[in-house]
């Protein structure tokens, strides 16, 4: 599994309250369990107040920098369309992109002072072709009981890129990190994410 010193770079982005930090904790749990060195870095000082949340997540045999170099992202996992677009230049040409199909207007857009960029999925598809997945996380999560679980739906969709990691490791991370009463909901959310992703 770890023949060379290749480090894989995953950038997670979203808006405070969307559960981006939980998603990155699930990743950390899984990749540590799989025997990798992991580094994860986030600015979350004021994210509770509606600011953007970004997590740099890196795994490999030995990881030095806690930050991903501009242009070196292998996977972009984004919980909001605009927050995906903000990091489009961070991605490698070969990057795989998963975006939650949700728009949350920033203040300037709410005030009518700026426009929310149009057709973000098309912008990604232009550059990354078939490596872009747009997931209706909210809708899927709502169908199984709670829109809050959209983040775990996204993680489920994301998990398809890592066939070497068995499903039970993801489920274990979810049950280790979340309170018992929401285990069932989140396991279903994860599996739904997996399913829609493999339906492609």
């Amino acid at each position: 599994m770890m023949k060379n010193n290749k480090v894989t770079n995953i950038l997670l982005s979203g808006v405070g309250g969307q559960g981006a930090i939980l998603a990155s904790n699930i990743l950390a749990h899984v990749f540590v369990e799989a025997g990798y060195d992991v580094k994860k870095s986030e600015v979350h000082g004021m994210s509770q107040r509606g600011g953007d949340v970004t997590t740099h997540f890196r795994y490999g045999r030995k990881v030095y920098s806690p930050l991903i170099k501009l242009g070196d992202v292998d996977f972009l996992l984004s919980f909001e369309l605009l927050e995906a677009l903000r990091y489009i230049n961070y991605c490698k040409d070969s990057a795989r992109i998963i975006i939650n199909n949700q728009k949350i207007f920033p203040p300037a857009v709410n005030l009518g002072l700026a426009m929310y960029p149009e057709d973000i999925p098309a912008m990604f598809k232009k550059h990354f072709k078939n490596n872009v997945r747009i997931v209706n996380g909210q809708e899927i999560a709502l169908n199984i009981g709670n829109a809050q679980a959209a983040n775990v739906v996204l993680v489920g969709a994301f998990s398809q890129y890592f066939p070497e990691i068995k499903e039970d490791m993801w489920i274990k991370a979810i049950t280790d990190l979340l309170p018992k009463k929401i285990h069932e909901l989140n396991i279903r959310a994860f599996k739904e994410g997996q399913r829609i992703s493999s339906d492609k």
Partner: protein
Amino acid sequence: MKKILQGNEAIARGAWEAGVTVACAYPGTPSSEILPELAQYKEITAQWSPNEKVAVEVASGAAFTGARAIACMKHVGMNVAADPFMTLAYTGTKGGFVIMVADDPNVHSSQNEQDSRNWARFAKVPMLEPGDAQECKDFTKIAFEISERFDTPVLLRGATRVSHSDSLVELEERQAAPIALGLDKKESSKYVMVPVWVRQRRIAIEERMKKLEKYADEFPYNIMEINDTKTGVITSGASYMYMKEVFPNYSYLKLGMVWPLPKKLIAKFFKKVEKIIVVEELDPFLETEVKALGYKIFHGKDRFPNMFELSPELVEKSLKGKSYKAPKIRVKTEDIPKRPPNLCPGCSHRALFYSLKKLGTFVFGDIGCYALASGPPLSAIHTTICMGAGIGGAYGAGKAIGKEGLGKMCAVLGDSTFLHGGIGPVMDTVYNKGYATTIILDNRITGMTGLQEHPGTGYTLKGEEANMIDYEQLVRALGVKNIRKVDPYNVKETMDTIKEELNRDEASVIITHNGPCMLHRREKRKFQFPYYTVDTDKCRGCKSCLDIGCPAISWIEQEGTTVDGKNRKGYVSINRLQCPGCGLCAQICKFDAIIPGQE
């Protein structure tokens, strides 16, 4: 056993493993997580102090008895703690005493950018600088050993990218602190810092520094890695991580101890490597010192910025110069609307600052969530310096311009910040006959840093019930005669009260009530109605309600007419999921278009 920990969690773990029994702090990003983590250990008395000066004094007192103690703060906290710290550097403490200070390069959440390494040189004490979570834990532990061995406070430097990054840490067991507890016999020449004994200690410090310099050469975390001998890098902390990532083949001298410097090791490195580059965030601290030792460096601050933070691409760009190939720009991301932090929907600060803006008051502000009212559309703050500074500022401004200033200005700060640094300047305003009006925004918690208890909340860090400061009694004891309480959600009453007090030629204090932080679980705010909604038949699209910058209200651009035939360019909409029903927007709407919603 290995576990993934945040840098701050690892510092807490290191302190616990080192046998620490007393830990104190005032919260401040990026250091705030250390104390709540320490509070989980039953062996440790972990507490929020009213400010960093008190935290350092309490921790040092514990260390005087032989205990191991730690005080934690952000970089600006050291400015407050500097007074006891600079003299504790003279006395030393019997038990291990560590001050953890977290810098915020690039100012993610601070009022300035400081390089705390300067404190080490200034106070003549050692400083360690970890670069990841494992080092955070290891360095914390060894800091206590150094403190006891050399009889000195030890500084541990954090930074946003170290304190707030997670990586794997090998966990170990807790060891008891090595020194027996007790109050020693009087030793005035060491602990009573009056001039005659200060002079003796001044000499002792220099001797200690010489010993520490020798120790730096054998310090196990000053590590030389010889690879390609053409280029070598002297660096530390996160900078090492970035450089190592981008230039893995260079040779490195990674300094775990950034003060004092290991002179012999540096000499050796210069012998082994042809060209030396110094890479460090913020000030040219290492560079200046290496140059002072007589060495010529190949690159330093001539290439690397002396402000903000470094990153893998920035070190590459700085060093490669013109040969740096920037990655492809697919979209001009500078043009994408920003998403700055905002006051929460329903926040009582929004209501209060709306009133101040309407009154046109010159606001001497403070740091905390209310600083978010400085940006548009509220734009209601004129100064933000540090905790408590607004009160002294408003009082001083009144002294300069006299009666001209009456009715025109006030100081605004929070409950936690008032207790931190606001008591002195209110006392001064009364004593020296000023007329400043101070508004204490009591949201029942330390908000911005993530909801920490303080002496006004009635609870300790460990969740025990405690004395609760009565602000009214407190300011009355300072001599304030005019004390008013306002409900900030009642705009008219608030504006009338503020206006009256601003015009009074005497010190006054206005305390908000009924406005706990919207994120506060214990004092969960409930409003009369569950949410408000827009009657789109009536909304004329005047945009007045947008002036409060509430995240729940948005503008829908769509030409049309109201039900009574008035033309409009668009209308507003309220997001039911975000709106907690505070009703501020409904008070502002002149057309009764914002109405209570039903469950």
